[in-house]
């Protein structure tokens, strides 16, 4: 029933090329899609179909290995937040926060009060910036049938201008607190180098109120998009912070009864290396699991303010969301929350006595975890008595989601084998983009190969 002809390659522009058949695989069929765009990093997708059954799905990561855990050995603990930020230009604050908290846990230091509030505020900036980027620039074009937002702007300039304004507000918050939006320079173990005056934060209020309005409109708008009927029975994993929607810290919880402190992560979660990828794949008790907006939202709906819950409800979301295509709505809801939360922190802000707590290194080890826009980001460090790093382990959200992305693709391809080639390809790419995968982090382009074997 497949319309795919033997030995044909389809690139991203939809033009077919003749491809010699592979020896030893009679009647094999191959579809190859050029590039997966609007994803951070590089990867390719291979799907093998035998007699209309999906036999194998492999997401290959081409991002060159980047050895950060090795680079950190012998560096001072004080350099770690700056060095780990360089793992990802899209979510450097997540790396800075997880690393600071891991090192502070090692030293028995708890950064609380206004310093903690400022960290949360900086993180809100990153959520707004990263989510706005994904919603409007990486994900929305799929739903509206555009190759990118620049071309979308030709037809709907106001929509894209509002999106840019929202994203810019997130970046401004990061610049104010972090010194710059990419690889902020103001974060240190124990707090900050410099804390803002109250007036500096208040100057952000108007812009954040406007951003909140745009975020609210965004929730309404993306709630009205068409979503395929697709609801896998995920194992969700996220942090859970008492009294707050999880951003900075918390216990690790799941919808299957997991409830552990961050320090117990390595007893429950394992990473394995697979031959087809430079990224490591993580599992929870041997099973794949999902981190990120869907998991966070579904495990912490009760922690959202009533106004944000109401906006989610009006956009058609229930308290648990299992449809990965609706992650665009969940991201919009989280963006709205981040704007609200930023405004709350600014209103309550009082300048702390000192920009950071005193830090004295000692031989120790500790773990830390925070909610990067794409999901939980775990760091673990050992340091010696001089504060030099003896060992580091970093588990980014995308490597935790890779197995789940492959599972989603397996189910999705199996259910839609009848779709014409270009459509199936687009849907596969969209399935991957649902996760906002930062493949740079886990070790932009994806090549889809569907091989039909009879």
């Amino acid at each position, binding site marked *: 029933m497949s319309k795919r002809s033997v030995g044909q390659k389809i690139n991203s522009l939809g033009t077919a090329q003749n491809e010699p058949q592979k020896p030893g695989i009679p009647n094999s069929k191959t579809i190859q899609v050029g590039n997966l765009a609007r994803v951070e990093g590089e990867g390719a997708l291979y799907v093998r179909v035998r007699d209309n059954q999906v036999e194998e799905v492999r997401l290959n990561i081409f991002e060159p*290995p980047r050895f950060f855990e090795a680079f950190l050995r012998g560096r001072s603990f004080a350099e770690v937040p700056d060095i780990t930020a360089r793992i990802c230009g*899209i979510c450097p604050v997540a790396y800075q926060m997880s690393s600071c908290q891991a090192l502070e846990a090692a030293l028995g230091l708890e950064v609380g009060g206004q310093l903690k509030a400022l960290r949360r505020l900086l993180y809100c900036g990153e959520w707004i910036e990263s989510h706005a980027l994904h919603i409007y620039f990486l994900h929305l074009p799929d739903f509206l049938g555009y190759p990118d937002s620049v*071309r979308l702007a030709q037809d709907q300039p106001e929509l894209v201008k509002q999106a840019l304004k929202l994203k810019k507000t997130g970046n401004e918050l990061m610049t104010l607190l972090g*010194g*710059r*939006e*990419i690889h902020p*320079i103001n974060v240190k173990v124990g707090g900050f180098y410099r804390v803002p005056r109250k007036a500096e934060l208040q100057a952000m209020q108007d812009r954040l109120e406007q951003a909140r309005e745009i975020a609210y409109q965004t929730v309404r708008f993306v709630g009205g998009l068409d979503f395929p009927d697709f609801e896998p029975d995920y194992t969700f994993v996220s942090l859970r912070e008492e009294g707050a929607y999880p951003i900075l810290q918390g216990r690790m919880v799941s919808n299957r009864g997991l409830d552990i402190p961050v320090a117990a992560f390595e007893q429950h979660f394992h990473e394995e290396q697979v*031959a087809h990828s430079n990224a*490591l794949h993580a599992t929870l008790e041997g099973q794949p699991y999902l981190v990120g907006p869907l998991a966070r939202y579904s495990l912490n709906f009760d922690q959202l303010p009533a106004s944000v819950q109401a906006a989610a409800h009006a956009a058609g979301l229930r308290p648990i969301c299992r449809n990965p295509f609706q992650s665009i709505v969940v991201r919009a809801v989280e963006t709205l929350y981040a704007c609200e939360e930023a405004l709350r922190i600014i209103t309550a802000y009082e300048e702390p006595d000192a920009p950071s707590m005193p830090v004295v290194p000692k031989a120790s080890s500790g773990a830390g975890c925070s909610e990067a826009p794409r999901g939980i980001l775990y760091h673990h460090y050992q340091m010696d008595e001089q504060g030099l790093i003896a060992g580091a382990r970093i588990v980014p959200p995308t490597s935790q989601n890779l197995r789940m992305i492959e599972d989603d693709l397996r189910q999705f391809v199996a259910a839609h084998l009848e779709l014409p080639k270009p459509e199936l390809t687009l849907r596969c790419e969209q399935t991957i983009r649902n996760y906002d995968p930062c493949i740079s982090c886990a070790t932009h382009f994806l090549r889809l190969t569907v091989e039909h074997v009879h």
Partner: protein
Amino acid sequence: MPGKRSKPKLAVWKFASCDGCQLSLLDCEDELLALAGAVKIANFLEASSAVTPGPYDRSLVEGSITTPHDAERIQAVRKNSRFLVAIGACATAGGIQALRNFADVEEFTRIVYARPEYIQTLKHSTAIAEHVKVDFELRGCPISKGQLLEVVSAFLHKRKPNIPQHSVCLECKVRGTVCVMVAQGIPCLGPVTQAGCGAICPAYQRGCYGCFGPQENPNTVALSAWWTHLGVGEAAQLRAFRTYNAAAGAFSKEAARHV
């Protein structure tokens, strides 16, 4: 349409990197749509699935060369590009990935990966200019948005980009920041680091850590003598010069004095 000339084609390429420098382009929120009106964004996978075949009038190249495959790919990019601009510390100096140049990469692979035999990587992380002719290098980890826009507009107006090569110190003076090293004894790489960031770190009460790499003819020996006077040990001085621009000439040379 006068002359009906087609818009110049801009392409963005990624090698080993964090994506931050190409993100700077999308972070130009106020200018992005105007820019998209002035150039044809012909290849920019972080932002668009529409790819126009080369040749390209200008290519922005992010990241360093760290795999045999990328060493071949950069040749193809060069062949397809009229002007090639390397953006960011990875592309101009090998970036933080160049820390491997001073270590045993096989051991690194064993530290990070349980099955090192699956991993293909080069022993050194190298700048784009070590592989192909580069027409302009834009420094920074990350690059500055303002400087990126300057490079792109200079290209559109067919003039040389105005990118100063003096040190961060001058930017502190312009910004009105009191010298953190003189006034507070905070070790700072500003006197030997190229300007461009706007002297952010001293304005936030910390020393410059050298994201933009060495300025033209820096006096690193004098600076490290000053650092020693401030009580900074040899190991810490080595690390300071060997981080985000470890393989950049003057920093690499100075670091070697502290091994």
